[in-house]
């Protein structure tokens, strides 16, 4: 366990990584907003693109800023369980209301 802990601590990213992540987040946000003005070109592809982009942002923040990428698997499992149930129920409701 001691060994694993030190691995965890070593892997924690530093400010440089955080800033890099922030830059990526900013770029993704700009792309997202850009799609808003490109509705006519993207059409059906728009919604999948937006979902993928926001999922990417989500994963970046959770993985790096919340350290989940580097933290105990148990915590990952807990959060994943909550997300899974929430997303599953949301999808089920969208299906029930035919959206």
């Amino acid at each position: 366990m001691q060994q694993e802990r030190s691995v965890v601590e070593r892997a924690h990213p530093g400010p440089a990584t955080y800033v890099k992540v922030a830059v990526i987040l900013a770029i993704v946000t700009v792309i997202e907003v850009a799609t808003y003005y490109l509705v006519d070109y993207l059409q059906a592809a728009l919604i999948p693109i937006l979902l993928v982009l926001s999922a990417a942002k989500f994963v970046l923040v959770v993985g790096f800023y919340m350290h989940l990428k580097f933290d105990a698997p148990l915590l990952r499992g807990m959060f994943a369980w909550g997300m899974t149930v929430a997303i599953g129920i949301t999808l089920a409701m969208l299906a029930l209301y035919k959206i």
Partner: protein
Amino acid sequence: MSDSTAVGHVPEAHHTTTGISHNKMLMWAFLASDCMFFGSLIWVYMVYRGRSLEGPYTQEILNIPYTSVSAAVLLLSSLAMVLALHGIQHGDMRRFRVWLGATAALGALFLGGQYFEFTEFYHHGLTLEQNLFGTTFFVLTGFHGTHVGIGIIWLVTLILMSLFGRLTPANAERVEVAGLYWHFVDIVWIVIFTLVYLIPY
């Protein structure tokens, strides 16, 4: 107890079965639960999307450029938050306070932006009672705003504690836990921004 000094320096995390501290695990469990809270608000919003019987309708009223700036502000606050945490973890209390102050300030800026957005909408006739969009929009974003507000109070408390010497690098984990909450509020906004603002009708 002499033999306990050996473990005295190790963070309290080591006292637990899993090696994860109680506080951190509590926060993650709470966040998992909060996923369901926002998940429920979001699915109700999604189900009612486009079902308002009278205006003002979503596309007439949402101001995407304005909200993009808000969203960026909240994302930036997340960056400030990790930098503050990095500060206290490395014993740099000044850096910690500056960045934590920046986090709280950016959060406050976001809330201010939300306040002006809400007032603007009210002037355009979108109220809680007006239609389903008003009802679901204000309650969803309002509860997110409440979370931001609670977060700001928390961060300010941490800054005050550090000024009074009650928060030292030894308990940097308190900042980490507050940070988890703050980032979670941020990712909720990432989802809301996409589902409420960006996805067209």
